[in-house]
């Protein structure tokens, strides 16, 4: 039992924080050192993250590399880490972006360099923590902590209109997540008798499972069959929809789904290149990840009820986002709206509740992280040179920046999901899952429209920016990518090809989580094949002592006693 | 009609009267004086309640220390009859009314309570209310609050100096 058997996740999560401490000790005038230390830290983190990714046994337990110690036992909390297939994949994505983000901003960020890198490192820790935390309250803490560095990043190092964007981003996301906090606490009290309560994901889920199944049974039954429910099931019947709504709103804002997406364009447009990359690459996934991990499995019945509605929103998001792109003049805004469209695919795949759809959705999360992250990165390089985001200020760049153009076009093809690039696998699986699902065929058909529009707007943008004659004198002497920029871009391009041509290694790790997700989500679906309880239950390591459950000091009567 | 009841009657009436003076008197001096007498009569009532020690402390601390402080401040600020009654605003009227209302409610409540024994409780042991008994409990089971209070007094002292002093 070596140190890493138990602590690998801790290492991955807190390594950036350690390096943040190092950076903190450096004098803020030592820009080179600050950057170097940060880069090394991210690189080390990448190493450990990759190690964790390969340690993950697809055929093994659902949650692996678990680590759990008592923490705030009075509140039924415990410090509990662990990753399943999806989490470890997203974790890989996060650590992969880390060093590249540092490289991308070496010349982009010119003031308050030390603070910037501190923010980067802290942000990394919070994101990794949110992905790996198995305790709902712990997840919430990381989930919220994420906002602070990002807020600073947009607000301090952003473009001209940064303050508005930062505040908007912060409040917008906070609204949802505070409601979620309420729901979490309520869930905690609902979830069981005083002795048995806990904020631990496994305990919560297992406590709710039986009630959810009763509820599903009566929901599919005759009208008013649910009136006879008692105890937890009755509580869930009454309050479940509200709790689900709170969770869903929080995550929907994060995703962002239509119509709560308007923070995204502003935040993206104003954020520095690093901010945009992380925002698109990882943060948006927190929303879909939340749906996957918390909102849908915990409230399958309510989710089932809301499914058509959410699916409609997702489809609207796909088409609407694409249409928005056609109306943009601002390149970053266009890319931001394209994220809305892509994330729509992720949501649709989740809501299809078929293993194809869910796998595709998970894979689409990774793709979007890679391709959109790369788009923002590349545009960042362009912005450094010209300091304008308007398409009309470019045109014919390809003549002077051939390498850059090549890279950008490759990433564009990945973003419009040309087969052979990573984008295709995700989109194809999502759409097929949608067609296979119990959703009406129209959903799939409309979502497929995104395929056309995607090509239309991306190529339109490429056309306006790169092709044609050089229309502005300033563009005549743009220098092509230098070595650093090529090195920053290369990993993305390699990944685009690798993930497109041999996705199976990635899918293998996602697959088990997908099956479990589908099984848990279809608890609420009437008529869907139901899995055995031992497949549904969340098996997690228990605390050395059984003290994880709350003491009776908390109010004795759960909400259930109110009826 | 025993003597105790008679004494209680006297003390109670006098207390209320002087309290009334406190809140009605024009100048602060008068109300201060009325307050002093209130304290004295209250002390008497305390004695009727077998709380000799508290009665003594009442006289010492209240009638002695606090009231002197009051008078001292009044003198210092030299507010003779300068004090005027404030215009009767809505809030004042409501406040006064609510005070009476509260009195009525309490009275009704007390009137309807049967729980309280008409007679005084069991004959307590001889030490009841003695300095010894109080000291005993204060310095054993109530030590920590006692210390806290002493600290509070210290802080109050320093605070008073700091606040009141024109410049430090």
């Amino acid at each position: 039992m070596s140190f890493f058997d138990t602590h690998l996740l801790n290492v991955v999560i807190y390594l950036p924080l350690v390096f943040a401490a190092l950076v903190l000790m450096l004098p803020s005038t030592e820009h080179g050192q600050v950057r170097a230390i940060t880069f090394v830290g991210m690189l080390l983190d990448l190493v450990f993250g990759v190690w964790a990714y390969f340690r993950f046994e697809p055929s093994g337990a659902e949650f692996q590399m678990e680590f759990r110690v008592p923490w705030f036992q009075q509140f039924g909390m415990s410090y509990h880490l662990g990753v399943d297939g999806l989490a470890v994949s997203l974790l890989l994505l996060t650590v992969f972006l880390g060093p590249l983000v540092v490289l991308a901003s070496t010349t982009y960020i010119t003031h308050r360099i030390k603070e910037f890198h501190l923010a980067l490192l802290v942000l990394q820790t919070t994101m990794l923590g949110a992905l790996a935390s198995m305790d709902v309250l712990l997840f919430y803490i990381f989930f919220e902590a994420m906002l602070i560095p990002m807020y600073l990043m947009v607000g301090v190092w952003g473009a001209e209109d940064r303050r508005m964007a930062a505040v908007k981003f912060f409040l917008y996301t906070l609204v949802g997540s505070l409601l979620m906090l309420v729901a979490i606490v309520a869930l905690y009290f609902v979830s069981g008798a005083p002795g048995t309560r806990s904020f631990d994901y496994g305990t919560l889920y297992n406590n709710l499972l039986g009630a959810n199944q009763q509820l599903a049974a009566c929901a599919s039954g005759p009208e008013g069959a649910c009136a006879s429910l008692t105890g937890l099931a009755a509580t869930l019947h009454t309050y479940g929809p509200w709790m689900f709504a709170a969770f869903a709103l929080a995550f929907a804002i994060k995703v962002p789904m239509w119509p709560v997406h308007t923070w995204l364009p502003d935040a993206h447009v104003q954020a520095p290149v690093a901010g945009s990359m992380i925002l698109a690459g990882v943060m948006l996934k927190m929303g879909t990840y939340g749906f996957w991990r918390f909102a849908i499995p915990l409230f399958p019945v309510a989710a089932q009820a809301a499914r058509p509605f959410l699916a409609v929103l997702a489809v609207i998001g796909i088409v609407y986002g694409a249409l928005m792109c056609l109306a943009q003049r601002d390149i970053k805004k266009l890319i931001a709206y394209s994220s809305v469209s892509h994330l729509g695919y992720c949501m649709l795949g989740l809501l299809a509740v078929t293993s194809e759809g869910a796998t595709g959705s998970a894979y689409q999360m990774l793709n979007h992280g890679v391709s959109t992250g790369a788009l923002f990165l590349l545009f960042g390089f362009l912005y450094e040179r010209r300091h304008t985001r308007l398409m009309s200020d470019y045109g014919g760049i390809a003549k002077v920046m051939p390498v850059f153009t090549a890279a950008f076009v490759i990433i564009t093809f990945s973003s419009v999901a040309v087969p052979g690039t990573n984008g295709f696998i995700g989109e194809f699986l999502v759409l097929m899952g949608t067609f296979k699902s119990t959703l009406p065929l129209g959903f799939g058909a409309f979502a497929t429209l995104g395929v056309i529009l995607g090509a239309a707007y991306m190529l339109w943008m490429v056309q306006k920016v790169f092709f044609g004659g050089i229309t502005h004198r300033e563009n005549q002497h743009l220098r092509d990518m230098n070595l650093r920029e090529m090195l920053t871009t290369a990993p993305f391009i390699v990944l685009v090809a690798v993930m497109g041509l041999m996705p199976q290694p990635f899918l293998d790790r996602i697959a088990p989580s997908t099956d479990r997700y589908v099984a848990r989500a279809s608890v609420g679906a009437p008529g869907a094949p139901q899995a055995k309880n031992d497949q549904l239950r969340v098996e997690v390591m228990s605390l050395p002592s059984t003290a994880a459950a709350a003491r009776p000091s908390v109010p004795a009567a759960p909400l259930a006693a109110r009826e | 009609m025993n003597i105790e009841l008679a004494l209680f009657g006297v003390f109670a009436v006098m207390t209320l009267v002087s309290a009334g003076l406190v809140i009605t008197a024009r100048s602060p001096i008068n109300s201060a004086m009325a307050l002093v007498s209130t304290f004295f009569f209250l002390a008497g009532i305390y004695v009727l309640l077998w709380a000799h020690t508290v009665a003594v402390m009442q006289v010492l601390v209240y009638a002695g220390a606090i009231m002197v402080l009051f008078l001292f401040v009044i003198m210092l600020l030299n507010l003779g009859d300068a004090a005027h009654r404030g215009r009767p605003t809505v809030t004042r009227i409501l406040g006064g009314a609510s005070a009476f209302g509260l009195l009525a409610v309490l009275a009704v409540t007390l009137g309807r309570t049967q729980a309280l024994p008409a007679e005084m409780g069991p004959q307590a042991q001889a030490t009841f209310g003695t300095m010894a008994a109080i000291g005993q409990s204060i310095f054993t089971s109530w030590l920590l609050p006692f210390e806290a209070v002493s600290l509070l007094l210290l802080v109050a002292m320093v605070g008073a100096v700091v606040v009141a002093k024109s410049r430090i």
Partner: protein
Amino acid sequence: MVPITYYLLLAAALFCMGMFGVLVRTNALVVFMCVELMLNAVNLTFLAFSRMHGDGIGHVSAFFVIAVAAAEAAIGLAIVIAVFRSRGSVNVDDIRTMKH
């Protein structure tokens, strides 16, 4: 023997009078005195119940109340002095700067 209710009634009356004074008088000093009245009413209740149950806790509480009252008076009066210095008046009407 005097019924406990009488003491409580007296305390109630005293308390309400103090309250009345606090709410209607404008002179800060008088307001303070009325606060003292209220405190004393509370003390009276303590002692009465203590007598009724025949144990000394009430006395201890009264003792603490008195101590706190002393502290409160000290600080309060100091504040009054400070306010008077800055405003030249101890009327609560004139001291309403802590508004929107």
